[in-house]
């Protein structure tokens, strides 16, 4: 079993769209997948048309598998199950701080799913907290969507510094370009520069697309649409590259 997170300190960079589409593609490839929505906004949960159970709380999440199992919901797609997010997750950090201060609690919880799933995908809230640190230790790969803009790149540098400082494996971080607008001169310049000079960046990139925005209305991964679009192809390419990294 492998764990993949979609993470960025900054919000609105396409984290959720990425993980939702990868979850669909991985499941369609025959992997048994659990998508765990850790963001209290619950966008990934919303995309899959799932309503959260009232009794589900952050506290129960930290209690581990026994408490969690009954909240796992089957999505409309074969092999894909969802652990929905809940607004109470906004206090996950306080709970973590109060209870254990451990950076490994998530890793230990997910260990118990070793035989149930091939992949666990995490949609993460945007910030650096104890919860994020837990995610960094639990995940095998951390996908970091980056908009080709100065501010977005700055947050990526901050993340790199943090990894260095905490001595977390740098190789887990997998940056890739997201919401790229070819018409914007700045985007093209930064894109070219990054792809030429930073070997860590994945070759595939996700374009800025009205179709991706429409996922909020259609409430379905764009990769699951029958119609082929540039955005769908971009997620297919991204999944292909991630599959190679997993091997």
């Amino acid at each position, binding site marked *: 079993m492998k764990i993949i997170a979609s993470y960025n300190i900054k919000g609105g960079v396409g984290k959720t769209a990425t993980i939702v589409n990868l979850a669909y593609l991985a499941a369609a490839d025959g992997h048994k997948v659990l998508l765990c929505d850790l963001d209290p906004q619950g966008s990934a949960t919303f995309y*899959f048309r799932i*309503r959260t159970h009232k009794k589900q709380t952050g506290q129960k999440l930290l209690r581990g598998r026994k408490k969690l199992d009954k909240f*796992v919901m*089957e999505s409309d797609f074969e092999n894909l199950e969802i652990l929905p997010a809940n607004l109470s997750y906004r206090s996950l950090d306080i709970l973590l701080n109060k209870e254990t201060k451990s950076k490994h609690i998530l890793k230990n919880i997910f260990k118990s799913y070793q035989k149930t799933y091939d992949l666990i995908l995490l949609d993460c809230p945007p910030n650096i907290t104890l919860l994020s640190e837990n995610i960094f230790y639990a995940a095998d790969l951390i996908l970091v969507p980056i908009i080709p803009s100065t501010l977005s790149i700055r947050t990526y540098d901050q993340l790199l510094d943090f990894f260095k400082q905490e001595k977390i494996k740098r190789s887990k971080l997998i940056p890739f370009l997201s919401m790229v607008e070819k018409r914007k001169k700045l985007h093209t310049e930064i894109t070219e520069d990054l792809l030429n000079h930073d070997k860590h960046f994945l070759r595939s990139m996700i374009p800025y697309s009205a179709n991706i925005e429409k996922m909020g209305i259609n*409430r379905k991964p764009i990769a699951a649409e029958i119609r082929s679009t540039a955005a769908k192809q971009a997620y297919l390419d991204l999944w292909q590259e991630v599959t190679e990294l997993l091997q």
Partner: protein
Amino acid sequence: MESLLIEISKHYTHQTISAEHSLSLLLDSFDWRLYNKGYLLRHSNQHSELLNMDGHLLHKATIPQKKRPRFIHDFPKGKLKDSLTSILAPRALLERAQIVVESCVYTVLDQEKKTVVRLQHEQIFLQSKKPLPPLQDQLICTPLRGYEKEFTTITRILTEDCGLTAATKSENIMKLSLEKMNRRVKDYSSKADLNLDENFSGLDAAKYILGSTFETITRNEQGIIDDLDIEFLHDFRVAVRRSRSLLSLLKGIFHDTITDELKTDLKKMGSLTGALRDHDVYLDKKDEYKKMVPAALRPGLDKYFEDIHKQRIDEQKKLTQFLQSKEYQQISRKWQQYMRAPQLADMDKGNNADISIKKLASKSISKRYKKIIATGQMFDHQTEDSEIHQMRIEFKKLRYLLEFFKSLFSKNEMNHFIQQLKTVQNCLGNFNDLSVQQESLMQHIQAMPCNRKEHLMVAASLGGLIAHMSEEQQKLRTVFFEDFEIFANQENQNLFDTLIQF
């Protein structure tokens, strides 16, 4: 289905996902190996599905080639192949029925338009030009994890409001399809179930048994001619051998002229099929043989097997001609009718025809058993291979006797002995095979012109194989002595004496 959907739509919305119509083949071997193990193999458009008898999908596989799978090696690596290998090999899959599956999938949605239950309406028809009622018509309701409440509500609507009843058991599609075609499942088994009456005379019993062996012979002819798989010939030969054994084990049932005529005919059937069976066995063991020699000698073996393959084609043609000849047809039909005739003329009967079969069988079994024990106890490590071969023949005779007549005695104990005999016989059979094979490899080497490098390579490979076989054969001697000791222990002998009293 529409009225059901109307009832559901009072509470939920629904969506039609797919409506499919597909032709499927139901596959099984001639002797129903999958059916006997509780499996159903369905094949449609390069997709094979292994189901259990309740229709639950166990494994599926996509077949790379367009043609339907015939042998185990036509399936790709995977769980489906793994499940079938030990059951099916070396038998071929035959088409037992063609069915049409009409399947509609619907999803039931909640207010968020999220699927909460899947419904599949599946109708299975026997393929036919005229419209037939379905063999099976069912609605499969599948719950989604996390939506158990909705599932309960929908099944309640379907049962209480729509009046459907929950299925208690699934129909067996293979059985239903064959019944519709006026045929039966399990209509052939290589192990004929012989139920003899204690009051049968020797003649009644012999006619009954030979009637059954001749039926087996006839049933296997077409499979040999069509060259479907190697077991048709094997079963054919076993039935011939069993018939011959019966005649020599129960003497004096028929008049000597009848017995001699029948023996001559059976002998001919046996000898004309021998060469093809030998080739079949070799080719079936090809991979096993290749593992017995070092890699450098394997190309030589390939050449050898090519030759065997060519010879096999010739033998198969020859045998087909024989089986289709008037002469053969007359022989086999004549004896089958003869054995089925209600009454035989007195002049056809032998001296023992009217003696009770139980008495005859007991005497014959007892005689064989005692002979085996006495001979086996004289064996030591200096015993010649030829003596061990003789022992194999004695064991085989005893086993046939027990199999023919087990219904006359206590079944459990008889099965216990038959099982023990099988163990010893397997060992002796392998011992014998190794002898025969070494001999035939030697003959092959001697018959080869040795002036070409290619032939030298073949000779070297076969030499390697012979060396390995000879070693294996010596190991089997020890195994046989150990197995025999168990078979001949006093406890077993006492059990045998109480079982077969006359």
